[in-house]
């Protein structure tokens, strides 16, 4: 069975995505900055699903390593899922340039770097799928979160253009926009229960949407409506709001 490459496999969402694809028979390349962090997950998936799991070192901001990383994969993957993300508090990001730049680079620049390489290959082979985990935060910049949000907005735009380009090659591109998800990243926040998804539900939504060849996925789906409203508030009102 084909391989799926998961970039940023250490997160709670990635863990469930990996389990979901394995459950459906896919072999996995799991990547993180330090692949030894993934050895428990590798064992877990191998016991659960009897598929092959390879864990690999990969730093999304080490752009000059990306080409050789992809070239050394013995079997090229059928699909790639970018889960890497970095979010720090807005207050920190707007004061500390290092944090700000890292937010932009992990969420956007690094993803572009690796996806440029992979999409060229998929286009040539005329097959494959690409999934990018963006965020509802990219749908409109808000004072509470606009540095992270703008990096995700750029990523969403990139995926949109990539989808447009690869359509005629039969390569599908799915943009995922999760709302609140109960993860390590959000453990300290008090999230409203009805709007908050569990990682396992996000993973299953992604699998279904990707298999069905969908373009954009909001998860939970209620976020489509919420963001529709937020996007349509006129700027002269929006600038006075605190949401």
């Amino acid at each position, binding site marked *: 069975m084909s391989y799926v490459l998961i970039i940023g496999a250490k997160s709670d969402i990635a863990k469930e995505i990996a389990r979901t694809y394995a459950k459906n028979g896919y072999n996995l390349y799991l990547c993180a900055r330090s692949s030894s962090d993934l050895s428990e997950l590798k*064992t877990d998936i191998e016991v659960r699903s009897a598929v092959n799991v390879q864990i690999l070192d990969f730093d999304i901001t080490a752009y000059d390593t990306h080409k050789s990383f992809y070239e050394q994969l013995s079997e090229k993957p059928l699909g790639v899922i970018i889960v890497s993300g970095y979010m720090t508090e807005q207050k920190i990001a707007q004061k500390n340039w290092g944090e700000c730049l890292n937010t932009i680079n992990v969420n956007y620049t690094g993803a572009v770097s690796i996806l440029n390489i992979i999409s060229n290959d998929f286009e040539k082979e005329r097959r494959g799928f690409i999934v990018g985990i963006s965020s509802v935060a990219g749908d409109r910049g808000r004072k509470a979160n606009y540095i992270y949000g703008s990096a995700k907005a750029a990523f969403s735009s990139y995926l949109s253009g990539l989808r447009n380009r690869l359509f005629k090659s039969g390569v599908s591109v799915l943009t995922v926009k999760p709302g609140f998800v109960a993860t390590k990243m959000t453990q300290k926040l008090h999230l409203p*229960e009805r709007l908050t998804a569990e990682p396992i539900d996000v993973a299953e939504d992604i699998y279904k949407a990707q298999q069905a060849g969908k373009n954009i996925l909001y998860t939970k789906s209620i976020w489509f409506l919420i963001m529709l409203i937020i996007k349509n508030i006129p700027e002269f009102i929006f600038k006075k709001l605190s949401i």
Partner: protein
Amino acid sequence: MSLFSWGMYPKIQNNKTSLKSVSGLYEYIKKTKEFISFGNGRSYGDSAINEKILYCKDYNNFLEFDEVNGILRCQAGVLLSEILESFVQRGWFLKVSPGTKLITIGGAIASDVHGKNHHIEGCFSKCVSEFKIMLANGDIETVKAGSELFLATCGGMGLTGVILEACISLKKINSQFIKQTTVKTTNLKETFEAFESFKEFQYSVAWIDCLAQGANLGKCLLMLGDFDDDGDLDYKSKSKLNIPFNFPSFALNNLSVKAFNWLYYAKAANGISKQRVSIDSFFYPLDSIKNWNRIYGKNGFTQYQFILPKENSFEGLQNILTKISQSGKGSFLAVLKLYGKENKNFLSFPIEGYSLALDFKIENGLFELLDELDKIVVKYNGRIYLTKDVRVSKETFELGYPNIQKFRDFREKNNMSEKFNSLQSKRVEI
């Protein structure tokens, strides 16, 4: 926030901390005065509820599988459903499974759950060869079957420590199908006779119409089954029907329950009939309806489950069923089963005899009725199942569990009494 169990009663404000790692747990145990472990929230009452809750479901890695002997080692937050999704297609099934697959391994051990094959295979602890647990002082101990800590922890309601991982043995199956035989009886005497004469079936359980009165008191559908020898192993959980909100609490009343029970009973053929059914529909019929607990309305519900020694079962059940049908507070799901021998665990529920489980929505007058039923249970030397309970008195509880003092002493000796507590353990002073 408010985490509650399956009965949606009681609901109190509580603080939840997720179990993610052993080192995190060590710090949590050291700094937290009192808490209780919480799995997937499928116990019915207040046995996993307290102001501080350790949420264990995220601690769910599979660790090792021995293909030859069918022994799985996994972390305590793994759900039984995850085991089925991985292993049925490879020809393995749980040796003991309760009527829902949506519980964690830790919960299965803490409640020492049982299933439709209790008369043959016993409780869940029988398929556990060892487990790891973190104690009140932060030490991790590997516990072998038969040791004192094992006897206290299996059925010990999470009151001895935090179960971290376990080795459980699975059983080989050749098919995902069950050969089911349904026996329709018309009164309690026939029901008892049917249980006795079909004892050799691996699985048996009866649905009983608890609103039936007089000559029909105790009429039931007895479902018996064994795994088929051939057939595919293509097991996938189906998509679920969901109850999206709480029903208004008047939706379940004497009339609607009577109508349901009538339809359910009438639909089965008279006498003995045979069917071939899937694992999910035989073992886990209610799991296919997500949030089915909401049909009881926002005030929640409770399940009253007791067991009586075999020699007293007939008379005791007659008394209790009469009392329930007179009260008119019936439930859809009244489940009767003949159990096998009891084990040596301090607080495991099963003893040899008949157990009845009934759901009741929480309403005025209910707890008074249940207190009345308690008196009958006590009179016939029976006991109440802690995993389902939310209201039993200390006195009734103690009379049913002769090993309780042993358990209390064990907790005291190992400094567990202060650290691990639920609302239930405080109520009945375990």
